[in-house]
């Protein structure tokens, strides 16, 4: 698309620009593919022994667990995300303007933090069940919360904001007159939602849900806290238990295949459909709802917000206070600074790369679907991806930099592994998928006639990009940057393995504390992580209001 618009008058410079775009895009894709290839090459050796054992004992149960989890989380995040987005965009109810942005906050709570807070509050030994046993009766206070439904709810509470944010911006960008036209043609509010708004928002919603599902699929830390076994359990068992990284990578590649097929199928089913929007109106149309319904909406929003954000933050604050102020030392602020700094640069780099990839994909040339491979980094369990990246970068070190150092008579030391560059690469390799969702769906919503009109008015090249594309892409780019920023702050395995000496972050501290089962001591860094994650969320909300 962009190509046909921008390169209508093919000049030498714009051809050069296209090649440059393509080169950077390919580089980004190569970065993602390298660790994935490492994983796929694990099939070069047979690990029949472990496979037989897994199939004989656990694999069936693990697959069933994983599938239940995916279905459960998929349904719950869709319900929460879409319903809440629809309420806050299209209906009037008390507190709407507040909930509109408050409901994004749970995104800043890492799933593993939500998990250990949930256990702390609701487990058998937690305050709630103790209270029930002491004051209501023994039988009410003996529920094992470490069960399937709890795991599903925990994931859904922290992952629904992906769907909510993307669905919300899709609903917002649907012009009111589309809905009004539907109403004028005899649809009631429900029909207008199901037959017009929902299908139009589908690409955004699918993008959000697939992010949530990929995160669930690749998760290890959260399910480990509940001792709930999923497919990643088998991966970690092969690696940490049987010391067999090969078998672990083989298992991981199956996970990857599953995700790749799903993404491909989704793209196919969407086909060539495009939803082009009418003009945006200044005035927003909202449905009038009965007072009862309105208060119900307020109630639903409050409950979700309480469970997903207020409760965990309160519990973290309690624990942090209990752990004492001596934790607030210089080291702590160092960790905080590292987290912010890494997340900031990573967000910038990742969003730029996502934009480059999105432009490349829009060209609809042969092979442009290759750029879709950039999404796969998100589908691997963090540790497996981290090792894949580490192996590919070590390879470059060993094959290129070390011989070079020898030539110049320097002491050979790895240049890439353990450098900040590699850590940043790990972040964009992992989170390109996160950034691509909002970037691509906002690019898709730009009507071809707009740049065409701008061109007839004399805008071209850079002017076209800066004055037409960027302003229209800005909400999407901002959303992408926020998502990546927050995700990088929460990221653990790659940070652990690839950080340069001394570059410990809040997530590293949380890992160290939880590894020793000292969840109370993890509270302060976790709280700081949540609060720091809120900053970009709030900035983006303020921006999107202008």
């Amino acid at each position, binding site marked *: 698309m962009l190509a046909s618009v921008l390169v209508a008058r093919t000049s030498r410079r714009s051809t050069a620009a296209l090649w440059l775009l393509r080169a950077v895009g390919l580089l980004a894709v190569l970065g993602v593919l390298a660790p994935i290839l490492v994983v796929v090459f694990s099939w070069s050796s047979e690990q029949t022994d472990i496979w037989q054992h897994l199939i004989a004992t656990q694999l069936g149960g693990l697959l069933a667990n994983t599938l239940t989890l995916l279905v459960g989380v998929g349904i719950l995040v869709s319900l929460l995300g879409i319903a809440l987005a629809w309420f806050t965009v299209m209906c009037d109810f008390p507190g709407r303007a507040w909930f509109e942005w408050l409901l994004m906050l749970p995104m800043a709570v890492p799933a593993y933090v939500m998990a250990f807070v949930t256990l702390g509050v609701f487990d058998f030994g937690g305050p709630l069940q103790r209270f029930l046993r002491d004051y209501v009766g023994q039988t009410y206070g003996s529920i094992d919360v470490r069960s399937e439904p709890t795991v599903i709810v925990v994931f859904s509470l922290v992952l629904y904001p992906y769907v909510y944010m993307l669905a919300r911006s899709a609903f917002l960008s649907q012009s009111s007159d589309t809905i009004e036209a539907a109403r004028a043609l005899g649809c009631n509010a429900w029909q207008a939602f199901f037959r017009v708004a929902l299908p139009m928002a589908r690409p955004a919603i699918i993008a959000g849900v697939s992010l949530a599902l990929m995160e669930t699929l690749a998760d290890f830390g959260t399910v480990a806290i509940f001792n709930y076994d999923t497919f990643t359990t088998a991966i970690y068992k092969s690696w940490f238990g049987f010391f067999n990284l090969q078998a672990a990578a083989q298992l991981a590649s199956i996970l990857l295949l599953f995700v790749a097929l799903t993404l491909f199928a989704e793209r196919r089913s969407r086909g060539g459909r495009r939803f082009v929007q009418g003009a945006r109106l200044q005035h927003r149309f909202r449905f009038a709802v009965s007072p009862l319904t309105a208060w119900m909406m307020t109630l639903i929003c409050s409950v979700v917000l309480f469970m997903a954000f207020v409760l965990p933050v309160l519990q973290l604050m309690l624990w942090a206070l209990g752990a004492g102020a001596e934790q607030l030392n210089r080291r702590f602020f160092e960790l905080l600074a590292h987290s912010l700094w890494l997340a900031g640069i990573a967000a910038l780099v990742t969003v730029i790369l996502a934009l480059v990839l999105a432009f490349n994909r829009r060209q609809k040339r042969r092979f442009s679907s290759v750029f879709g491979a950039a999404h796969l980094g998100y589908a691997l369990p963090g540790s497996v991806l981290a090792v894949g990246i580490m192996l590919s970068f070590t390879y470059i070190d060993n094959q290129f930099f070390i011989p070079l150092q020898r030539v110049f008579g320097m002491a050979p030391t790895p240049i890439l*592994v353990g450098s900040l560059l590699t850590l940043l690469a790990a972040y964009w390799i992992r989170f390109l998928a996160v950034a691509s969702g909002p970037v691509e769906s906002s690019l898709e919503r730009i009507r071809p006639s707009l740049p065409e009109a701008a061109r007839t008015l004399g805008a071209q*090249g850079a002017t076209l990009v800066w004055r037409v594309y960027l302003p229209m892409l800005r909400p999407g780019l901002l959303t992408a940057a926020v998502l990546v920023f927050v995700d990088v702050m929460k990221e653990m395995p790659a940070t652990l393995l690839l950080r340069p000496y001394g570059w410990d972050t809040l997530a590293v501290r949380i890992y160290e504390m939880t590894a020793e089962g000292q969840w109370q001591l993890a509270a302060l860094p976790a709280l700081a992580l949540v609060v720091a994650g809120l900053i970009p969320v709030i900035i983006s909300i303020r921006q999107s209001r202008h």
Partner: protein
Amino acid sequence: MMFRVAARLVAILVVVGLAACGRSTPPADSASGPELVVYSSRIEQLIKPIFDDFTKETGIRIRYVTDDAGPLLARMRAEGENSPADLLITVDAGNLWQAAELGVLEPIESAILARNVPPALRDEQGRWFGVSIRARTIVYATDRVKPEALSTYEDLANPEWSGRLCLRTAKKVYNQSLVASLIVALGHEQAEQVVAGWVDNLAVAPFASDNKVIEAIEAGQCDVGLVNTYYLARMLADKPELPVGLFWANQQGDAPAGRGVHVNISGAGITKASKHKAEALRLLEWMSGPTAQYDFASLNQEYPVNDATAPSELILQWGSFSADTMPMSEAGRLQGEAIRMMDRAGYR
């Protein structure tokens, strides 16, 4: 025109990239001599004070990176002879055994280490050495269980404990090593029966951490459990009135019943790739000496490997125990077999 836009994007990337490279360039070895690099799966809080003391005493600086043993080992292997790591520290024997199997650790001979570290707690070929002992034993609810009713790990598989036992997940290496010790002491068949008996006796599904096991006993969810002693010590330090007691398993009678408490180690080995082997050896020897041994004991309530150093005051109240003398390398060798056994028994 478009070229400029694209060029600007690329320029930003390049600048960021250069900045990233620039910031991470390691400081050149300054006048104060060599610097050791340690890959550690002991967390910062439990190892940094020891490094600090070492630096204070010797002037040798230490840089370290902490992570799980699996990823660290993968990194050492990939880096091969170019690895900057001088020392690998883990929190269990299994991973040290594995590192030795993979050939990334250097066999060393040291009279100091031979004197300070008992033979069962180090590799025969001197590729790794224990630096602290972690005992895994029985804990019980003091208000519901009489210590006389307790005896051995095996006994917890008997029907009298049905619905009263709490365990941590089988995914934790501590439990894998414990089951490996059962295999050594009782043979495969009997060990598998014990594990199956444990699973039958579980009050609730296994927990994710030892802390949760202790909390569950305190809250009344179960009566007995198996934990590493320092978890209980830490909780007792916060809350001395905690109604959870500690029982030293397998102290009475002849082997195998009286083989002693199962112990694991946190240990270290010098890497093959190390360019500072003399300094690395100095650190390792120093870690087995009085200052560091005292640090290990007081930082995390673990037991010193060096019997010249006393354990902390807090854990002295539990008295002394005789430890299972199974060589630590067995824990690594049998780890895979132990996991298979636990999988077959349905111990998650």
